[in-house]
């Protein structure tokens, strides 16, 4: 991390349903992203990773859910304290987002050029010609052939991979400092996945934007991210640089995740799987959310939620057992 962090989440809890009586789907999540840094957020479906990203963009409708606790800081300023018009100005300019569903994330009745130009128009590009030129330039950057001619084309004339490229072009058109990519490659074919990841690397290189990449696929994360945050059942369970995660995962859940990845040359007939299934959000009220499935679980695990312990090399994980074995330090104050 270089200098002051760009984005900081401090002890963020997100609640769905009616205020105060709702369901807590994300609890006490804290992490930070530095300028230009690429951080992965990994976890299974329902682990709260998408909800966390929507909360950063403040895109969870107020009637549905809200940040109940904690704060989200962008360049040191609280995003939660901004008025809606101020937040509207932040979205798309300071931080932009691309989504999992390229097929349905573009407006079907607006040409793709106009959709990119709209993002520019919303953030102070008043000159129509300049917008057009910039949109074409962005289409070229993301590798759309014949960008000038394709400006007027509609989303249905593009394939899924091409649409995701358009989404990326739209997201980075205003040079945001942070790009949140929520499962950007999940809906795509494997070869297209690789292309889109390459494109994201290229975009990062050319624009210097920080990226928060959300994925359930450790392979994708490992390909592009330096640091990883692992979430399980709405809780953050581990945070470390990618090498540490892959070599010495500190949390039993992360260890299970890694073991589940098929190994080349493995003799075993069956793939490894973590016993049991992901609990419903908020179903486990006491102790570590992973304890019912954890092979190392002890009595205290079902009683008290472990804090984030500090392991070697800045690795952090929320596990009583592995922390004790590694002699890790309790970090009451989260770094």
């Amino acid at each position, binding site marked *: 991390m270089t200098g002051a962090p760009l984005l900081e989440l401090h002890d963020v809890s997100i609640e769905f349903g009616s205020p105060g009586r709702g369901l807590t789907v994300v609890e006490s999540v804290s992490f930070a992203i530095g300028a230009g840094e690429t951080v992965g957020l990994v976890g299974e479906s329902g682990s709260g990773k998408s909800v966390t990203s929507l909360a950063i*963009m403040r*895109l969870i409708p107020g009637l549905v859910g809200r940040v109940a606790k904690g704060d989200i800081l962008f360049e040191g300023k609280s995003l939660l304290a901004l008025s*809606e*018009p101020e937040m*509207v*100005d*932040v*979205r*798309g*300019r300071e931080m*932009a*987002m691309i*989504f999992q*569903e390229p097929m*349905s*994330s*573009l*407006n*079907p*009745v*607006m*040409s793709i050029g106009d959709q990119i130009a*709209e*993002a520019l128009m*919303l*953030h102070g590009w008043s000159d129509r010609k300049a917008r057009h030129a910039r949109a074409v330039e962005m289409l070229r950057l993301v590798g759309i052939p014949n960008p000038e001619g394709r400006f007027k084309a*509609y989303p*249905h*004339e593009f394939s899924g991979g091409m649409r995701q490229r358009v*989404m990326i072009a*739209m*997201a980075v058109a205003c040079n945001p400092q942070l790009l949140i990519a929520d499962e950007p490659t999940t809906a795509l074919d494997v070869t297209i996945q690789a292309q889109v990841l390459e494109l994201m690397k290229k975009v990062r290189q050319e624009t210097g934007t920080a990226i928060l990449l959300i994925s359930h696929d450790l392979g994708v994360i490992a390909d592009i991210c330096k640091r990883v945050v692992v979430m399980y059942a709405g809780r953050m369970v581990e945070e470390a640089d990618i090498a540490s995660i892959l070599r010495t995962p500190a949390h039993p859940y992360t260890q299970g995740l890694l073991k589940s990845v098929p190994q080349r040359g493995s003799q075993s007939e069956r793939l490894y799987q973590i016993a049991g299934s992901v609990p419903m959000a908020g179903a486990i009220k006491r102790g570590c959310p992973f304890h019912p499935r954890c092979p190392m679980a002890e009595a205290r695990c079902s009683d008290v939620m472990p804090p984030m312990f500090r392991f070697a090399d800045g690795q952090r994980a929320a596990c009583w057992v592995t922390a004790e074995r590694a002699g890790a330090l309790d970090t009451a104050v989260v770094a």
Partner: protein
Amino acid sequence: MTRYIFLRLVDAVPTVLLVLTLVFVAMRILPGDPAVAALGDLATVEQLESFRERMGLNEPLWVQYFTFLGNALTLDFGQSMMTGSEVVDLIAYNLPYTIELTIASVVLGVVFGIPFGIWAATNANQSPDAALRGFSLIGYSIPDFYLGAVLLVVFSLNLGLFPISGGGEGFVDRMHHVFLPALALAFIKAAFLGRLTRAALLEVLGKDYVRTARAKGASERRTIYRHGLRNALLPLTTGLGLTTLAALSGSVAVEMVFNRPGIGKLLISAIAERDYAVIQAGVTVFALFVVAINVLMDLVYAIVDPRIRTK
């Protein structure tokens, strides 16, 4: 786009032919003798026979059919059996009043219904939504001719604000005459379009591309109108076509209630008098209206949705 318009028009040709055929068949299987109906019970056999000869009713059916088709295509619907005046002239006199009524009622329905629907959708499950639900229930429940009679009694008879009957002369007077009947027809349209707009907009506002619009920094207002409503126009176009057609059938009763000229009223009196030529022409005009509106809707679809345009 030109090709699309051309194809839609070509598509309409068999429909028109089918409609004309149905009209012809319906007229022939109608019970009652047109000659007796026209000349009355006291007419002599010779008089009836000469009438049939004059009207071509003695020709074989297929000759009558092709004569009818040919005449219809050249807009020659013969003479009214009752008054002897040219049917084309009757249609030409009455049609503008019906079109006027249809357009006015649809405009009123759109002006009240769509904003109401937007208001309800953007305040879903809150009081505006409940208000729309109540309004729609009332709108759906009151028959247009009954509402027309009530409006007539209250605003024309008792308050004297609007004329009691007729179609009016000159633009301002005609608008004055058309307002109440149009309002009677518009009530259910506003209810229908309000519900439809609410449902369509709510569905669209849950779409991924609406989230994308928000994520790139579109204000709530821009998100709703530019991205939401623009996409909700597709189902709304269908609804608009349906409700325009409903205005046609509704106009029959409402023209009677307000005693204003129009194809509906012309048709009703022609049926009462068994004036075959006029009935034939009236039904044909209504049917062509339906075909025309459908073609028009297809064109609107193409304007609204680029996916249809490029097919």
